[in-house]
């Protein structure tokens, strides 16, 4: 039924928009959401006084694009992982399964929602950043084109990974297990501290993960060309960025449907009831 699938994708689109509106109009969600964004912005403001080693360029201006790259990765990964585990437990997914093409609509909705949240988050960082920092996006149209493809490819690489992780963990309270490795990855990916200053084996690990390349891609888009001198290989390495993020996207888009289908097949009224029982025991 082709029309059923096309219809479900449209329904998923409106589902994502509705849920985005819900989140942006719920004070509690806004607070948890923008609290972190505000902290990140504050960190970069404190870095404004320092300069990048060996240059006169502001360290704050250098960190802002890196943080944008990190936000794409963490937004795609952690938001989607968290939503999937929570909504599996509370029965949202089972409800989607009981509706024709509901799982497709649900997934499209989540992709729209998480992408939308990431865009809002990036705008919240970037728009004040443009006024607060100098030397950002001086390359004109070229800057924004690079920005756009890094953003799109970054989401394509990270959203399926979030879906895979979200299908693997059935307990929302296991999120800590996912958060720590992500924080570790942020630590070595040159977001706050240059990767080139790390031991070689750590550099190697960082360059396998998408966060490093998202940070690099955003720096290449928004910073003056001269600053590529402080990067590994003294270059923005666009081809490599395209390659690594592309591979992650291809891997994720291949594996995610298999894992998601397997996870969905296992959902039933009794499995949701069993998880509810467990969660209730934790509450009391």
């Amino acid at each position: 039924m082709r029309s059923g699938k096309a219809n479900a994708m449209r329904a998923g689109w409106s589902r994502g928009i509705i849920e985005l509106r819900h989140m942006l109009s719920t004070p509690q969600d806004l607070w948890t959401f923008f609290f972190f964004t505000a902290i990140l912005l504050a960190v970069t403001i404190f870095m404004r006084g320092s300069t990048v080693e060996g240059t006169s360029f502001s360290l704050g201006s250098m960190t802002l694009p890196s943080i944008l790259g990190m936000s794409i990765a963490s937004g795609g990964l952690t938001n989607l992982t968290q939503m999937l585990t929570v909504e599996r437990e509370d029965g949202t997914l089972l409800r989607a399964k009981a509706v024709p093409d509901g799982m497709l609509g649900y997934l499209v909705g989540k992709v729209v929602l998480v992408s939308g949240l990431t865009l809002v988050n990036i705008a919240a960082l970037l728009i004040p950043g443009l006024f607060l920092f100098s030397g950002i996006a001086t390359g004109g149209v070229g800057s924004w084109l690079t920005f756009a493809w890094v953003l799109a490819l970054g989401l394509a690489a990270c959203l399926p990974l979030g879906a895979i992780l979200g299908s693997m963990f059935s307990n929302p309270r296991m999120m800590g297990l996912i958060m720590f490795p992500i924080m570790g990855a942020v630590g070595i990916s040159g977001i706050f501290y240059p990767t080139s200053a790390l031991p070689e084996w750590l550099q190697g690990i960082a360059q396998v993960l998408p966060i490093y390349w998202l940070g690099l891609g955003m720096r290449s888009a928004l910073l003056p060309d001269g600053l590529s001198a402080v990067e590994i290989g003294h270059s923005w390495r666009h081809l490599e960025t395209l390659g690594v993020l592309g591979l992650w996207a291809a891997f994720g888009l291949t594996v995610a449907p298999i894992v998601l289908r397997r996870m969905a097949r296992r959902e039933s009224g009794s499995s949701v009831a069993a998880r509810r029982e467990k969660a209730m025991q934790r509450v009391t």
Partner: protein
Amino acid sequence: MTVIEEPDSATRRIRPPEDDTVLDVRDLQMRYGSTDVLTGVTFAARRGEVLGLLGPNGAGKTTTIEILEGFRMRSAGEVSVLGIDPAQGDEAWRARLGVVLQSWRDHGKWRVRELLAHLGTYYTPYATGGARGPWDPDELVSAVGLTEHAHKRVGRLSGGQRRRLDVAIGIVGRPELLFLDEPTVGFDPEARREFHDLVHRLSDDEDTTILLTTHDLDEAEKLADRIVILAGGAIIADGSADELSRRMSTEAEIKWTRDGQRFVHSTLDSTKFVHDLFRQYGEAIGDLEVRRASLEDTYVAMVREHEAGRGTAAVRKFEGATR
């Protein structure tokens, strides 16, 4: 049509005409590891019928329903739901089913009407392919009595209101077959009555076939055209509430007054007893009341007999009585 049968004899059963059969389960078996949950379940339902599936906890009711809904794979047996094996059911098949799930806290930020309108859109493309297409959201909201709360957030509804919303979500696609798993838990008496009216409306006006599980036997007696009792992984009884109570030799209770005194007597043959009573005392008898065993009495007696290991023997006895 209504026959109480041996748990393991599918062949002797009298079946409804094939074209009218919405649900057909034959010798359904389910095994988890080395535990047999269902050992051979056989029953059927006709279009527009309300079928009550009763049974003690752990009897396999939920497992049975989940297999029929296509949410769980069976170990053996034949199952046909709307003419299709649920294990192979596609989305067009799903569009003809309604499932009322137990809710918890999903969609808490959505508003009632908004959620029903959204879920309805998934059914639209299937309206031509056999399914009947979704309810109008406003009509649906009013059918389940939530008009006042149409723009409330789902998370702010009371328990009973949430349950009505669950029912609304279950029927949003105007299903031909509706699964109701303990639908009235947490309803106050008024909500319960309104819900019963809705069930009657769905089965009478919309010709919806309904499979209902409940622990409220009074409710089952009111709603179900036919009762199927599942115990120990098999069907131990199948028939209307009336037929079951008549066949299970539970005693009727007779109350009367004579000369200002109250009398109570329990007997198997209430008609003969009352006849004798009037012949002996004539007009001196007042306030006569004959209460046949309720479904609850019958159910408890049947399950107890089954659990005592005499299930098969007892069932044979009923079968003899029908001939």
